């Protein structure tokens, strides 16, 4: 085992161990809100992980990943309204719907490269956004409040914030291991090869398009799972989950943690959301400071945000 792999394993234990201990800290400090914030962080960490899978390893900058958060969230809302409250069904529907949307939009978007790809993924996400805005049966612009959280085996265990939190943490760890397996596999190496030199990959007999589309679909499905967690945490679903600002924030999280570094994506999501929460303590206009910080970091760090975290990452 190389030293780098050792270090990554230690970092993973530290991060997930920290998350596992967090509800205890919240109980000791008497601040239950911490668990609520942390659940949101876990959900966004899943989404950032999924985005890093295609952005970091596949070189595909999707600027529309918030659409999958929304698709996952609406899977919960729509099934719950129909009387199906089981978490398994919600997750299944979210994964299928997210994968299908990714398959169709990805197949079209992947015909293009670079900046076209960024704009097209953004446009498709906006399409999904407007679809749910005009869906008046589910509250349109205002969204819907969920009657209750998803049930597990018919029980409303997730009603307890801490149970939901640990369920989300278990999912995050599972998805992280899945992504580590994917990126370490032959599939992942072809994906990275297609990022570096698609022509050469073609020359040695692979079709980059198929690998990229598969990764895009996997990423969409994982992000939809994050949407299921978000909907359960807030007990509320609205098109604002799909706002393009959120897609931008997801990209920021991935870049913040170091592109092509799965643990980094989780750390980036944590940092970005903590910064948001912290800035929001001082002013309603926290986006002003967040945006200004973003500009400054991009301008003054040679390799963008990742430059600040050199030494870690790949």
């Amino acid at each position, binding site marked *: 085992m190389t030293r780098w792999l050792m270090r990554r394993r230690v970092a993973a234990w530290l991060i997930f161990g920290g998350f596992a201990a967090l509800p205890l800290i919240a109980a000791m400090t008497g601040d239950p809100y911490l668990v609520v914030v942390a659940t949101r962080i876990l959900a966004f960490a899943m989404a950032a992980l999924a985005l890093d899978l295609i952005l970091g390893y596949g070189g595909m900058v999707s600027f529309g990943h918030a659409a999958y958060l929304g698709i996952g969230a609406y899977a919960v809302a729509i099934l719950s309204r129909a009387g199906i409250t089981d978490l398994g069904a919600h997750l299944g529907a979210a994964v299928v719907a997210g994968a299908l949307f990714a398959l169709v939009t990805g197949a079209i978007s992947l015909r293009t490269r670079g900046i076209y790809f960024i704009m*097209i993924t953004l446009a498709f996400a906006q399409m999904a956004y407007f679809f749910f805005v005009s869906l*008046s049966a589910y509250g349109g612009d205002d969204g819907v409040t969920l009657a209750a959280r998803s049930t597990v085996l018919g029980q409303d265990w997730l009603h307890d914030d801490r149970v939901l939190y640990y369920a989300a943490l278990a999912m995050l760890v599972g998805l992280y291991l899945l992504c580590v397996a994917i990126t370490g596999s032959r599939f992942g190496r072809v994906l990275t090869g297609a990022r570096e030199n698609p022509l050469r990959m073609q020359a040695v007999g692979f079709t980059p398009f198929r690998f990229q589309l598969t990764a895009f679909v996997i990423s969409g499905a994982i992000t939809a799972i994050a949407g299921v967690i978000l909907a359960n945490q807030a007990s509320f679903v609205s098109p604002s989950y799909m706002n393009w600002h959120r897609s931008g924030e997801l*990209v920021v999280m991935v870049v913040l943690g170091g592109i092509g570094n799965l643990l980094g994506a989780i750390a980036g999501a944590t940092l970005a959301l903590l910064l948001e929460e912290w800035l929001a303590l001082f002013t309603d206009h926290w986006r002003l400071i967040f*945006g200004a910080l973003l500009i400054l970091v991009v301008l003054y760090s040679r390799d963008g945000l990742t430059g600040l975290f050199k030494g870690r990452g790949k």
Partner: protein
Amino acid sequence: MTSLFLLQLLNGVQLGVLLFLIAAGLTLVFGIMDFVNLAHGVIYMVGAYLVVMFAGLTGSYGLALALTLPATLAIGLVLEALIFRRLYDRPHLDQVLATFGLVMVVTELVKIIWGQSPLSVLPPDALSGSVPLVGALRYPVFRLVVIAAGLAVAVGLWLVITRTRIGMQLRAGASNRAMVGALGVDIGRLFTVIFAFGAMLAGFAGAMVAPILSVDPGMGESVLILAFVVIVIGGIGSVKGAFAGALLVGIVDTLGRSFGPIILRAVMEPSAAAQTGRVLAPMLVYVLMAAILAARPQGLFGARP
């Protein structure tokens, strides 16, 4: 029915002309500098707010418009000098992130200065009436002025690009930036001019629609995304493509919203048709984009994919 069609067609052309004003600046910057500017939409929004503010101060829409143009030009110059200039050689991702940060900053600043609630401004008295078009159909004068102004800008832009020295440099810069620089053109200055000019076009568009639409902090975003769709359809870097794409998107979007439900009513019951139409209409331009891309990934007039 025919008069309704004509009315909506004019509305579509008006939206298209507006989108062209935004997309032209965006595609010049893209095509020539290879620069992604997500903040282009907020300059359109700032143009609208400025015209409302200046109209309040001077009491005249015309005067306000005359003040808004140099103001947005100046904003373009300042942003170029402070931020964009440092990002030309950076990867697209850096440009996207920095301009995304700028969107957040400008949107919040607008909320702080002018508040969250929508503002409005009246068109000048001389242009506030409506004129008869065909039969009983009347159309607001100001909307016709917007269409005329947009078309005039399109023609002017075409003349500048095809007939002037700076236009020649622009076209050359779009195909080979390094070569143009080697031939002695001051690339840095050319970029500054394009950026400021693009910002002014966006500001002009914002100022022109302020009397028609409500002016609110979200107005820049929807237009920015539509302008992206326009550019993707037309082909990056092609002003001709931006014009064709803008008219296509404007007309398809407007006609889809008004006639979608009517057409659907032929195949389903009225209430279901109205509901389905409402849901599908906003997606129409994206379906159009997908269809065009599936056939031509580089867009209608684009040279490279």
